[in-house]
């Protein structure tokens, strides 16, 4: 790897193009159920770090604009993550795939 080749998720997401829906998120989390989940696997199972635990409130911050649309989160936590496709034309925009 050359020196500046990205290694972290943040740097790799920086390579992607998005058509972000500024008006609404395509993801919802039931905060009470999230807080009650002892494992909180979505925090690491999401390959785009969409879900971050707020250290103060313990709530789940949803960085939906990072989403790469793999759908792993709602398979991991079907009882509290509601994930659906962004509206037509919105969201991640792959060039290679």
């Amino acid at each position, binding site marked *: 790897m050359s020196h500046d080749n990205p290694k972290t998720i943040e740097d790799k997401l920086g390579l992607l193009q998005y058509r972000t829906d500024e008006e609404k998120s395509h993801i919802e989390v039931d905060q009470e159920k999230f807080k009650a989940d002892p494992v909180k696997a979505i925090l690491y199972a999401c390959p785009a770090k969409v879900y971050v635990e707020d250290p103060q409130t313990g709530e789940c911050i949803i960085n939906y604009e990072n989403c790469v649309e793999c759908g792993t989160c709602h398979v991991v936590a079907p009882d509290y993550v509601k994930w659906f496709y962004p509206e037509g034309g919105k969201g991640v925009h792959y060039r290679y*795939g």
Partner: protein
Amino acid sequence: MDEEFEVLIVGAGPSGISAAIALARAGVEVVVLERGEYPGSKNVYGGILFTHQLLKLLPDAVEDAPFERAVTRRRFGFLADDRELGLDVKVGRWREKPYNHTVTALRGRFDRWFAEQAENEGAQVFTGFMVSELVVENGRVVGVKVQPGDEEMRAKVVISGEGAQAFLARQVGLMATELPRGHMVTNVKEVIGLPRERIEDRFLLEGNEGVAMEYFGEPVKGLFGMGFIYSNDESVSIGLGLTVKDLIYSKETLNDHLEHFKNLPTIRKLVEGGETLEYSAHMIPDFGYSHLPTLTMPGLILVGDTAGFINGSVYHEGTNLAMGSGLLAAETIVEAKEHGHDIGAAEALAAYRNKLESSFVLKDMKKFRRIPDFFNRYPHILREYPGHVTRWLEDYFTISETPKEDVEKDILRKVRKDVGLFRFLVDMMKIGRAVR
């Protein structure tokens, strides 16, 4: 919209576009709805396109389609620490057309080109429209809801090539409401740009030759999944996948797994000095033949990933099963139309399953039906054997003045200690039975 189309296809991927081409060619009115800005902009796969169905549909594709390289070398590697056991198959003849029906391709280019062929045949492809749900009346799918706009579009038949998420199939109960964690595989991938000459030197390739390398064991820390490297023209696709079940169990991010894989001593040199062009993630359904969804209901046919058409086994085929299922869905509809039947009726669509059963799509899935359950049931096979076998081989090939007879006895002792002779035989039998 009051208009009713003959066929609406959800998704401009390999399955949907294959169906669209075959239908349009037979004079059926067909509309494709794609949520991406252009076909391919939402589509991700490992990197290998299997082309026998494509060439059946479009024989000129072997010249015209945007392929990257002809796969002339397939390698399977079992990694543990600094040891590697590889099975390497290289056939020079595969560099000649039709390239053993195995080429690398990038979906951003290929899917766009493929959808253009559908438009040339007379299909209408609308991009930027996401289908949010099926419209069902009296037990029959009669159309779809489209976003943005929340508009209804009606059709005699809807073909869902929605992809792995299968929201539509789950909405109408063709499969369980929750996707199974042990059978959904999340993959992450990087496309890493490298000069053509470097790729050819590193992977021992000439001209249009390409390589497909797949790795088990250490790359995924012995979990149910694999790492892969596929060579494109001027880039390599490197990635790895794990079942959601094992991803949860691993407690690490897929990017951490991928960085671990990329930095293994045997892998590092292959991608060194490259520039990452794209990072992506995508899910693959690995249900196996025994857990396929119900494939049709009145007014609806499932094709491609949304139907679970993947041949996991050692072949890792998907695109050809997608295209094959799309073609058979189209054939089912065209035959019903020719007979003057209602093309969305249950009786007409029943032929689809039979067609799949007598084609490679379900014949191959049936042959390998035990594999997805097998690795879920016996996780120790992938966890332990790459380490054991490479260690036994290391001993076998270690050169010293120890007489070879003693070396062999030592290895046998190790087999007994590591696994147990009886358990070893039972495991080998289990593996044999799983792939029989």
